[in-house]
């Protein structure tokens, strides 16, 4: 437990004065996410740790950014609570700050909400070295613009997150996973049709012809949903492994050696849940894993980036080259000019000297 805020402020002021940008890093577990950055200097948050406030009756936990997700999950589990957005951990040391800055959420995303839905407030240091406090530790707060949520997924280009308050929730008393043999198109339709009913669905995945649906909630609700849906019930330990592997992307589908063979790369397509099955002629359509009731589709493909991006855009979503080691060009979809201008002005407001993560989100930011 140490408060390194003053140390960070000094480093940031120095970097801003010398115009020598810093790479903000927690454990480095997601170094491969976003565009590769050129600067050499790293500012590590790993020493800035500690849970500062946690009262289960408030459903709020406040911790320093370098605290590991593992430590947070342990403290929460002791009181029967959890992080509802199920952040991917990738490595044992994965930090709270990194999870917020990357903004990635796990299987529960469409049902419980994503990282952004659970951030109540945060402290950050901007590019001038000022410590700023936004939001708070309460559930409802509309005082001023929602800068806390703006920081979620910002990949550190606006400032260094030093402290975060999260809404947390009780661990549901019962959980169950049901499996169904279904084609891609049928699975997408089925899981959406079920989601329109009052069923306690909290996760779904389709891979290799099998749709798996996770139910969680009150015992009675899970039991009656099991009766309604049918299917084959997965033994609890296998179910726990399945959802854990999806959350952390340790599922065999994400195996790099296998996936990148033949010059393929991993694409994340973020689409409206009911977007149709991807055309079989699209390279990689046969190497797919579908989560989030159809709203997140993973694809190992050797198609030209523009082909995949056009496909995602035509369906109302967007596409990300998930690992920058194999990326061709920018990893994210380009922004329309109007939105890019807003991004640039926000960058100038929070980081006028370009002290943080240059280019990690977009060139020039």
């Amino acid at each position: 437990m140490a408060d390194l805020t003053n140390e960070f402020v000094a480093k940031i002021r120095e970097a801003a004065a010398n115009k020598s940008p810093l790479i903000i890093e927690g454990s480095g577990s997601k170094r491969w996410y976003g565009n590769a950055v050129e600067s050499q200097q790293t500012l590590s948050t790993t020493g800035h740790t500690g849970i500062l406030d946690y009262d289960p009756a408030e459903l709020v936990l406040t911790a320093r950014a370098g605290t590991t997700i593992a430590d947070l999950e342990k403290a929460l589990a002791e009181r029967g609570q959890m992080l509802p957005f199920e952040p991917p951990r990738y490595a044992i040391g994965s930090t709270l700050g990194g999870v917020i800055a990357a903004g990635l959420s796990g299987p529960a995303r469409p049902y419980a909400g994503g990282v952004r839905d659970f951030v109540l407030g945060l402290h950050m240091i901007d590019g001038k070295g000022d410590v700023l406090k936004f939001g708070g530790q309460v559930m409802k707060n509309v005082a001023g613009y929602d800068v806390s949520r703006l920081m979620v997924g910002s990949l550190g280009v606006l400032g260094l997150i030093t402290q975060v308050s999260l809404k947390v929730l009780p661990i549901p008393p019962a959980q169950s996973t049901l499996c169904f043999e279904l084609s891609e198109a049928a699975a997408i339709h089925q899981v959406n049709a079920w989601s329109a009913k009052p069923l306690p669905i909290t996760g779904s995945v389709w891979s290799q012809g099998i749709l798996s649906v996770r139910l969680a909630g009150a015992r009675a609700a899970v039991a009656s949903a099991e009766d309604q849906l049918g299917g084959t019930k997965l033994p609890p330990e296998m179910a726990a492994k399945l959802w854990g592997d999806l959350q952390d992307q340790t599922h065999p589908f994400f195996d790099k050696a296998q996936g990148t063979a033949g010059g393929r790369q991993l694409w994340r397509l973020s689409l409206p849940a009911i977007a149709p099955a991807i055309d079989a002629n699209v390279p990689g359509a046969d190497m797919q894993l579908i989560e989030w009731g159809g709203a997140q589709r993973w694809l190992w493909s050797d198609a030209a980036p523009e082909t995949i991006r056009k496909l995602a855009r035509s369906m109302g979503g967007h596409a990300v080259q998930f690992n920058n080691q194999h990326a061709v060009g920018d990893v994210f979809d380009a922004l329309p000019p109007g939105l890019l201008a807003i991004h640039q002005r926000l960058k100038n407001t929070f980081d006028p000297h370009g002290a943080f993560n240059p280019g990690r989100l977009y060139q020039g930011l």
Partner: protein
Amino acid sequence: MRAKQQRLVEALSSVLPSTNLLWQKEDTAPYECDGLAAYRTLPLAVALPENEAQVQAVLKLCNEFGVPVVPRGAGTGLSGGAMPIQEGIVLSTAKMNQILDIDPLSRRATLQPGVRNLAISDAAAPYGLYYAPDPSSQIACSIGGNVAENSGGVHCLKYGLTVNNVIQVRAVLMDGEVVEFGTEALDAPGLDLLAVMIGSEGMLAVVTEVLVRLVPKPPVARVIMASFDDMTKAGNAVADVIAAGLIPAGLEMMDKAATRAVEEFVHAGYDLDAEAILLCESDGTEEEVTEEIERMSAVLRQSGAIRIQVSQSEAERMVFWSGRKNAFPAAGRISPDYYCMDGTIPKKAIATLLSQIKEMEDRYGLRCMNVFHAGDGNMHPLILFDGSDEDQWHRAEDFGNEILEACVALGGTVTGEHGVGIEKINTMCVQFEEKERDAFFGVKAAFDPAKLLNPDKVIPTLHRCAEYGRMHVHRGQLPHADLPRF
């Protein structure tokens, strides 16, 4: 008509049908305030565009003229966010009121900004779906205004606020450019500008289309009405329910003053001797609700509830809720005017704040009744006063500000769901330091560099805070020596 107004009206006439432009005093008067009627200003004109192209044209024109624009939804806001600016116009989205699409399979509705909140749920009902955020004004307030205010309601704890239920917003920037915040998917490339847009109180862009998430309507809902003979016990009961791992669909509290006022109005059978009444709702399947109601009742009994009643029918559930939902009109019935506050505090501080408010009632010589969203600590003290008495209004204002400052001191915020608008702009000086306020100005300028969209709201200038600070110190030295005590 003044020359400036004349030039502006002439120019606006070229882009709007004559029925969609108001400029004569008798026509613009209804727009001089929103739900916060104590603050009024007449605008130069009111534009009522029917489509996005007209919104673009109006904004482009005002941008050229350098005329400020105040966007307005249904005008039900409680913080003066839609109060006009004297040298500006009001842009009302009320005429853009079409539900463009309801897709039951993807559980989404595409809406024009003027669609009423309740109309969304009504239209979704045939599919067994509804739109979750339910502010008390839902019969009248519009989705565009909900986006501007990040509106909540009584079911936020379980179902979230507007920010958790809106997928995409289409809007027009002050220079007339159309932008889309978010995609039709669950996230978008780049920074989460959608999150900033929601709750931005009409200061960043004018909303022209909203894509919202619909959720399945739970087949069953039942509510527990629990009485407590002590406010602290009631406050602790709220914490005990949550600590037991229960997330009620609604968890609301009323103090004795509120209970008595509403009982006279709705005759719901509330326990008039109770110091506090707690309404605790469970929704879901029959089995789920039965299980939850049992667990909730046990916790409430353990926490010292002296009377517990569970609604036995949908009609009875509505009766139990009727008092809570009618707290504002009930206040209006027993007092010529009331001033509704909206601070949020950590749940553990509820009893502390209520005892502080009790003490303030004596000091300001005004009564206050308390209704609140206990589950998320969002307090709505209703200060009762007579607006025809100037002194009473000033005392009510000071009383309100002191409550909000107490909320900040207890680790909370000056507004949970009503917005800052013009009403709470001074207390923003207490909640935020100069550097955060500067960052807010920076965010504003990133979307609206000319600072013409609803300017001078929400973020106080350094000068204003200095003024407020001076008043503050003065008050600290001489606490209300001039106030009559009774």
